[in-house]
């Protein structure tokens, strides 16, 4: 399947993947994250169940300290 990840096209195996699987696959190891699928916030407790499918627009934002 093809998705957009942070505005970059990505081709992944299969037809569906959970948020947790995507984080592992792409080695996103930051603790503080904001994740959106098609503009909708995915809450932390849903990372194991929320799925990403073909054509989805996924945003993964790392939060870092300073302000």
């Amino acid at each position, binding site marked *: 399947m093809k998705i957009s990840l942070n505005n970059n096209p990505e081709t992944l195996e299969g037809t569906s993947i959970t948020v947790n699987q995507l984080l592992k696959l792409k080695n996103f190891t930051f603790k503080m994250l904001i994740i959106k699928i098609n503009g909708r*916030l995915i*809450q932390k407790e849903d990372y194991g169940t929320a799925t990403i499918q073909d054509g989805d627009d996924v945003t993964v934002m790392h939060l870092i*300290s300073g302000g």
Partner: protein
Amino acid sequence: MTFEEIKRILQQKTVGIAGAGGLGSNCAVALARVGMGKLIIADFDMVSEDNLNRQYYFYDQIGRFKADALKENIQRINPSVTVLSHNILLTEINIPVLFRDCDVIVEAFDQAGQKEMLIEAAEIAFPEKPLVIGLGVAGWGKNDIIHCRKVDNMFICGDEVSEIAPDMPPLAPRVGIVANMQANIVLEILLNQTNDR
């Protein structure tokens, strides 16, 4: 638009400032100077001496609540701005109440965990409301990697990589650049909204 026309629009607008540290204090002052109608400012913290390397406070304000001190400073700059200062810790419970009537929310926290909490709370309560985030402000130099990008209703300002550390402190120039970028995006959002209407 002339400045008079800009002020007429901004007088009707309300901006929420979540955090009154380096980003929030400088962003709020910029918005006050251009004549924002109302600023809702929340921070639990008090001014300390080590804040003065970047935050819009004065030596004689050390020990004061930041939200109150910032209100005082803004009123000295532009008394026509209505400032609601809240000396409270923002949480996922009070964020939806405090910022409900804002046209735009500015995320101006220091700690990544706080930023995460605010963005989540705001996205859940107000998925359509513009949210201007400061991300990656530490250190000095590197003007060329500071940017602003839009993701749905979120506008992310900063370099997104420079995190604070003992050898990478937040300092007035770079924090001020990002704070003013945040203010600049707020203006763009509010003035374009009105033009589109």
